């Protein structure tokens, strides 16, 4: 193994070392982010407008787990168990769902600007929510309003799914979905939904207009176990099935035809990814309103740090998204106590400068 030795061995060794290095960094990142996420969760459950001593929070949670109802008395119990805990869990779920959706879309469309909105979920859900806010009082009065689940989240979810389905049908010919067509048709449908939402805001009264504004900025307020139990089964499939998509998306990075020749079931990957994303984003929007920024920026942050391998990118995006949203929610809840800030304002305020800093630091990696 001196200079005379054949170079292929050297190259292979170097490549293996590189891959091993990447993998080690990745593993470290997974462990690190998991710990950080846990820590943030603990802080989030411990902090709020009402000061409850950490010991008491632990006591309440412990009593709940062990079924010891004697300790479950008082308002602080309700605050921890029925206000904070579902809220933090919803934040973890929605944040993870949005970030993974963003990563999937960027991989699928091979476009760094892709975000979950591209498959039409956000615009469709936004339109449906606006319609529920503005027209709900007129057409849904009475029985609909007494349903266990408010009309708005259900409407938003259905609106998102219908739009995605329409987009998928438009872009699919002969069993093959064209991502380019989907991208462009998504822009068109988005503009249409935007126009209709504008029309709705024109005919809305002052209160409805305020509701629309607040809704479009997103909030984890109003999280409850019921809400969580409805949203979780819709978002979790995306998080559980994402390992199935990782290899396919890695192949797709080479191009669609190349991926196909590698034996990757391109069409099935596309359909599954779009379905999972539509479900997860629809449920997120329904539960938390429009929380922008998480879906597009978290995957980029992760990609800039550990590279584009989807096997790492997807789980790390989930952790990163969950952390960004739960962290932003802590700020949203505490900064104007006893009021709270819409979370969309906070995610962008926290995330954007950080993202810019990362871009400035590592520009050379973007085009690599």
């Amino acid at each position: 193994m001196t200079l005379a030795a054949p170079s292929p061995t050297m190259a292979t060794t170097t490549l293996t070392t590189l891959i091993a290095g990447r993998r080690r960094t990745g593993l470290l990142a997974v462990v690190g982010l998991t710990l950080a996420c846990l820590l943030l969760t603990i802080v989030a459950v411990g902090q709020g407008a009402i000061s409850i001593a950490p010991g008491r929070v632990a006591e309440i949670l412990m009593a709940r787990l062990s079924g010891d109802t004697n300790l479950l008395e008082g308002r602080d119990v309700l605050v921890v168990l029925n206000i904070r805990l579902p809220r933090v869990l919803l934040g973890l779920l929605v944040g993870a769902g949005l970030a993974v959706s963003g990563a999937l879309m960027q991989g699928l469309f091979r476009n760094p600007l892709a975000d979950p909105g591209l498959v039409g979920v956000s615009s469709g859900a936004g339109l449906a929510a606006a319609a529920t806010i503005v027209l709900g009082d007129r057409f849904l009065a009475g029985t609909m309003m007494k349903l266990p689940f408010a009309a708005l989240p259900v409407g938003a979810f259905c609106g998102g799914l219908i739009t995605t389905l329409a987009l998928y049908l438009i872009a699919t010919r002969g069993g093959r979905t064209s991502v380019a067509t989907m991208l462009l048709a998504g822009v068109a449908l988005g503009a249409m939904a935007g126009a209709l939402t504008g029309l709705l805001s024109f005919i809305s009264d002052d209160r409805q207009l305020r509701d629309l504004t607040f809704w479009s900025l997103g909030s984890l307020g109003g999280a409850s176990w019921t809400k969580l139990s409805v949203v979780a089964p819709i978002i979790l499939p995306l998080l559980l099935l994402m390992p199935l998509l990782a290899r396919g998306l890695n192949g797709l990075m080479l191009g669609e035809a190349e991926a196909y020749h590698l034996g990757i079931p391109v069409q099935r990957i596309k359909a599954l990814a779009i379905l999972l994303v539509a479900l997860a984003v629809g449920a997120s929007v329904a539960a938390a309103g429009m929380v922008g920024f998480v879906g597009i920026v978290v995957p980029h942050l992760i990609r800039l740090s550990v590279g584009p391998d989807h096997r790492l990118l997807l789980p790390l995006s989930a952790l990163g998204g969950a952390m960004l949203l739960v962290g932003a929610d802590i700020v949203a809840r505490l900064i104007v106590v006893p009021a709270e800030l819409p979370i969309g304002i906070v995610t962008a305020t926290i995330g954007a400068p950080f993202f810019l800093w990362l871009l400035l630091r590592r520009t050379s990696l973007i085009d690599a």
Partner: protein
Amino acid sequence: MSGSRPIDAHRGLRQWNRRELSLALVSSALGLAGLALPAALAGRALAQTPDRIVVAGGVITEVIYALGLQDRIVGIDSTSQFPPEALKDKANIGYVRALSAEGVLSLKPSLVMLIDGAGPPDAVSLLSESGAKITRIPDGLTPDGVVAKIAAIGAAIGATAPAERLAAQTRARFDELATLRAGIARKKRVLFLLSLQNGRALVGGRNSSADGIIALAGGINVADAIEGYKPMTDEAIAAAAPEMVLMMRNSSAHNITPEELFAMPAFARIPAAGEKRLVHMDGLYLLGFGPRTPMAARDLMAAIYPEAAIPPLKTAAAP
């Protein structure tokens, strides 16, 4: 006792981690919280004291201040702009339709008073689950509505007698206002201009609070073909022929002068332009629909009909 808990939690973490993430998060949260975070305040159950009112709805705040019971208020929403000291003295719980359940609860309210439309419903249901006493107050934009509102607020805070007095007084003022209104021979046409951004007029149409106060003041709302607060085209303004333009006075920004307004093409040819009839009034006074509304309507009436020398309400002098 407290030493054993974190250990239990970690043992639990290993088991649950495989099955269910949420349970793991919960158990490790309590384990690490017990270990790592410094003990801060004692987490006692929130004490129930009778005099801690949280108000969501500006008119409720105004009435409670008018009753002199403001010491009982601990928190108000951001629409509680009158009296001005309210938002300085009390905690601000945010916008009336975007309340935070934990934020409100952090004020340890013994009573939460919500005006019609306060929300969101999720936050309100969390509040009622917490055992906080909640009272909803109807928000009427008519004399009957205002009187009912005052009585309902008084009943909710256990000040029925003084509130009934204020309600009766307000009723008497509205009655006197009605007499004044009956004396108007020819009703004049009024346009309420909410804003004039970029020369685009946003006017108060049918079923708006501006519409309500113009009617009480004995005027005709020329924008009643429009529902709520909406933009109105220049030509429609010209065609509506208002004899007076009413705006809200803005204390922090420039108020448009009659010269500026009536130089604009839409306003140049309307009857109001002749004598440059532009009136600015305090927005909260004008559109609050609380105990001050009869006086506000009287003042507006005097502004619409300067030639009629509308007298001040005799009943307004009463304490």
